[in-house]
């Protein structure tokens, strides 16, 4: 047995779940928007980026450059990060998608609008903040909490995995138990029928984008905490990975996004150990194609809520 499947495996799993948790949180934004609009919001990676940036700016106001601050500041930063991303997501919907919807534009127009919005946001931030990466202020210094054999489990990994699970659980509960959640599911199942039943579709779409944005902002904060950097194009790779995770898990499904995100993170990290880092993305996408060949609708199929 290669060491990537024996001695290395446990800490590869931890690292993989931690990357995967972030993918999952972003993937939810893709998946629920697809659920109600059958639209891939390619500007979602920039919603994520805005969360990293907002968190960084908020923390930067309290923490001197190069220093570190209290973990409570990170907790406080949850609010600006999530709100910024949530509001940005809603704004994108208003500016880039709603006018198209009003005019009954073809699918392709949405796609172009999404890509345009994504580039617009990236380069706006590039002009504003500059090309070079900026430090994301340190709040949580990684400490190994657990040593099991040769495996060290770091506090940052635990925080990310637990926070991601809590968020997904909270969202599931919201969608299942609340009136708005029910309306959301109704729109996803049949928008016309939902409208006839008195559901305000525009409002539900707005809520959907807002929720997706909130989670992306939260993911952004975790990402910044873990990797200590922010930059104009930081959303690109996680965005692509999260989109992959959403498709892998079954686009439209919240649980699918979680499963897809975690599975993708795991596969990436374990395969990097077995075949070398250069094979990481190859393996991840072979996995995607493999799953889609066996189950074209993804692991959890196409359903909503």
């Amino acid at each position, binding site marked *: 047995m290669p060491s990537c499947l024996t001695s290395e495996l446990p800490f590869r799993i931890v*690292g993989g779940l931690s990357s995967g948790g972030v993918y999952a949180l972003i993937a939810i934004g893709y998946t629920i928007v697809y659920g109600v609009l059958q639209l891939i919001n390619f500007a979602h990676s920039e919603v994520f980026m805005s969360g990293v940036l907002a968190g960084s700016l908020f923390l930067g106001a309290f923490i001197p450059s*190069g220093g570190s601050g209290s973990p409570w500041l990170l907790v406080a930063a949850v609010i600006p990060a999530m709100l910024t991303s949530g509001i940005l997501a809603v704004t994108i919907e208003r500016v880039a998608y709603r006018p198209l919807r009003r005019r009954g534009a073809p699918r392709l127009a949405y796609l172009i609008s999404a890509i345009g919005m994504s580039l617009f946001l990236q380069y706006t931030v590039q002009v504003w903040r500059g090309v070079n990466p900026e430090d994301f202020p340190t709040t949580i210094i990684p400490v190994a909490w657990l040593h099991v054999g040769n495996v060290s489990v770091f506090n940052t990994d635990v925080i990310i995995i637990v926070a991601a699970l809590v968020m997904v659980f909270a969202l599931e509960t919201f969608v299942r138990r609340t009136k708005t959640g029910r309306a959301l599911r109704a729109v996803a199942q049949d928008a016309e029928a939902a409208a006839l039943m008195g559901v305000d579709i525009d409002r539900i779409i707005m809520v959907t984008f807002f929720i997706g944005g909130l989670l992306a902002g939260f993911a952004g904060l975790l990402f910044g905490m873990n*990797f200590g950097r922010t930059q104009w194009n930081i959303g690109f790779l996680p965005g692509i990975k999260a989109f992959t995770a959403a498709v892998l898990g079954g686009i439209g499904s919240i649980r699918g996004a979680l499963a897809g995100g975690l599975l993708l993170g795991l596969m990436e990290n374990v395969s*990097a150990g077995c075949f070398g880092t250069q094979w990481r993305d190859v393996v991840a996408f072979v996995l995607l194609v493999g799953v889609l060949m066996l189950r074209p609708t993804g692991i959890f199929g196409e359903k909503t809520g």
Partner: protein
Amino acid sequence: MSTKKVVKLGFLGDLSGGNAGLVVSAEKSALLAIKQADAKGDLPVDVELEAKDNKDGLSDTAPALAQQLIGDPAVVGVIGPAFSGETKATGALFCQAGLTDITQSATNPALTTYGWPTFFRALATDAVQGGQAGAYIVKSLQKKTVVVINDKSDYGTGLAAAVVKSIKDNGGDVVLDQGIEPTTDYTTIVDSVLAKKPDVLFYAGYDKDAPLLAKQYRQKGGTALFMGGDGDKGTNFLKEGGQYVEGAVLTCPCLDPNVSTDPAAQTFASDYKAAYNGEAAGIYSAEGWDVANIFIAAIKAAGANPTRKAVLDYVASLKDFKGLSKTFNWSPTHEVLGSDVIHFYKVVGGKYTLLSTPTAMTGAPSATP
């Protein structure tokens, strides 16, 4: 107004794009060298710098700029091009025009194999750098196990290959040799390095990525000595790396005049500061200054009417020209010769310090990081 003939030195490189930080200080140094020579008052002609900005150092935009320099009969020599890609794209043009170009920073080993008699390189190649880095790790530091990571760029893979070869040739053990494109999330590679528990982690890439890798590796408990090449040696390495790059050792075919103990280099560093509002001389400053001075010496030697041919002849026959970065002697393919062509820098207290010039190929340097 002077009635002397105006002679121009061209400069070609990325002055405003993403990698301008590696180029601008060389241009400023060249300008400073010309000003200083002019102030001495013994120049037979008026020398001007004709800088061409090849934004982002792209290969496809360089030839047109090279043509502009070639087309200007007053241009007798070219400082640069700054990067390997643009040098490769313009070398044949300069060669045809009989115009001498001396690069202060392009390090791809292949550049001198194309047989351009007009092309010279004022610094050691990636191959030489990698060779010395490997010898330093195994021979001087007595470290056995090394992980070498590259950023999959032309530069990174080339340097990494040279380092790996040298480590093996010197009897060391490369336990992991991998490429990873620049990213934010280095989890997978950090986990791989941790699993190998190496003595040294060498990153062949650029300074926008190296500190992030160092940070994520250190935060996860990695203790290996962090090393890198000239691409890592920038201000961002110190700024973003902070405590996580303390003790790191970087190799560079460049001399950092700000930390040199050589009086001439120190004078240059303070002159540069005085000329540019307190800004410190950057990477390849000393090399840019040296190249400009080689050309100035050539112009002086040629008298009141320097031609491209006269400049080329002078440069080609250069012997023991004392520069800041090294003493210049050319190999038959126009590479610099000598043991002082690679310098080792260690991060101490958040600053680069120059380790006593190791002659790693012949003997062991005394400093132990």
